[in-house]
C-alpha cells in the first residue's frame, strides 16, 4: 500500500511552483499553531503564517521551504500550500498602499517628467512657428 503511505504535496506561489512531489508527512505553520499532515488527513482549509514548511519525503529526507504566509488546502491524498511570495503583515501592506497612493498623487500634481517636457517643447515650437507665420502675413498685408 505504497499509495496510502504517502501524500502528494504541492507548494505553489503566484510566481511559480516551488515543490511538487510525494511526502510522508508535511508540517505547516498555520495561524493557530503548527500542524502536521499525514496521509489520509481530513479535508482542511486554513490560513498559514510566515515560517517554514517541512516536507518529509518517502526516502526519509526532510525538505524545508520558507513561506511568507498564505493558505493551506488539505484533501485526503493531496496537500496544497498556496504560498505568498512576499512577506506580509498588516502594517507592511498598509505602507505599500500609502506608497501607491502617493505616487498617483504626485503624478497628478504634475512633476514634469521627460515625456511631458518633450511634449511641451514641441508645443512651444509649434506656437513659435505660428507666430512667425502671423508676422509674415501682417507684413504682406500691411
Amino acid at each position: 500500500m505504497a499509495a496510502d503511505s504517502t501524500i502528494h504535496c504541492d507548494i505553489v506561489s503566484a510566481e511559480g511552483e516551488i515543490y511538487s512531489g510525494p511526502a510522508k508527512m508535511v508540517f505547516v505553520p498555520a495561524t493557530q499553531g503548527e500542524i502536521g499532515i499525514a496521509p489520509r488527513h481530513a479535508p482542511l482549509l486554513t490560513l498559514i503564517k510566515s515560517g517554514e514548511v517541512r516536507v518529509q519525503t518517502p526516502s526519509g529526507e526532510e525538505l524545508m521551504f520558507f513561506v511568507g504566509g498564505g493558505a493551506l488546502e488539505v484533501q485526503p491524498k493531496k496537500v496544497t500550500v498556496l504560498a505568498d511570495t512576499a512577506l506580509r503583515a498588516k502594517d507592511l501592506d498598509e505602507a505599500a498602499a500609502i506608497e501607491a497612493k502617493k505616487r498617483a498623487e504626485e503624478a497628478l500634481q504634475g512633476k514634469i517628467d521627460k515625456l511631458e517636457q518633450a511634449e511641451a517643447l514641441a508645443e512651444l515650437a509649434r506656437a513659435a512657428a505660428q507666430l512667425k507665420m502671423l508676422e509674415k502675413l501682417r507684413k504682406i498685408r500691411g
Partner: protein
Amino acid sequence: MPGTKEIRTKIASVKSTQKITKAMEMVAASKMRRAQDRMRLARPYAEKIRTVIGHLNQANPDYKHPFLVEREAKKVGIIVVSSDRGLCGALNTNVFKSTLMLMREWQGKGAEVSLCLLGSKGLAFFRRLGLPILASVTGLGDKPHVKDLLGSVKVMLDAYRDGGIDRLFIVNAQFVNTMTQKPTVTQLLPVLTEDASDLQEHWDYIYEPGAAEILDGVLMRYIESQVYRSSVESVACEMAARMVAMKAASDNAGNLIGDLQLIYNKARQAAITKELAEIVGGAAAV
C-alpha cells in the same frame, strides 16, 4: 545632384539604426519567451485558488463576502495595465482605446470612474483626463513581482470595501500569439464564481479559524494573483509587440538602404561620366 559623400553617411547612419533595431528585436524575442514561461508558472496557483473559492462559495451559502455580492454600480474602478517603455507598436494605444470605451460605457450609465494605473505609459496618458487616480505603480520592469503590486491592489480593494467603488475591472493586453495581442477587459470585483456544480462529492472542509476569515484571505490573494497574471501577460505582449515592430523597422531600414545604395551608385556614375566628358572636352579644345 546630391553629393555622394552625403549619401554615404546617410547609408551608414541607416545601417547603424538597423543594427539597433535588429538587436532590440532579438532581445525582445528572448524576453518574450521568458515572460511566457512566467505566465505558465503563475497558472497553477490561480487555478488552485479558483477551485478553493468555488468550493468555499458553495459550502457556505449563508455567508456572503462583500467581494462576492453584486451591488448597484455607481462608481467604477479600472486597473489599466500598460508598459513602461514605448517602441512596441500600437500595444498601449489599443489598451487605452478599450479603456476609454469601457469608461464611456459606464459614464453613459451615470457612473463615476476612478483609475489605478500600472506602467508609466498609462500614467502619462490618463493623467490628462483629470479623473481620480487612486493608485499607480511604474517601473515594474520585465519581471513584475507580486510584492510590487500589493500596494495598488490593496488601495483598490479598500476602496471597494468602503464603497469608494462598486465594480473593479482590469484592462490589459491579452497574449493571443506573437503577432496578435488583444486588449481585454476582465471584471475582478465582485468576483464572478463559476457554478461549482461539478463538485459532486459532498464533503466539506474543516475550517480553521472560520470560513469567513479564510474566504477573506483567499479572495484577496485571488485578486492579487489575477493582477499579477495580467501584468506578466502584459509584459509578454509588450515584448511580442516590440519584436514585431522592430522586425518591421529592420525590414524598412533594409529597403531604405537598398534605395539609397541605388541613388548613390547613380550619383557616382554620373560624376564619373561628367568627369570623363570634361576630360574629353578639354582634350578636344587643345
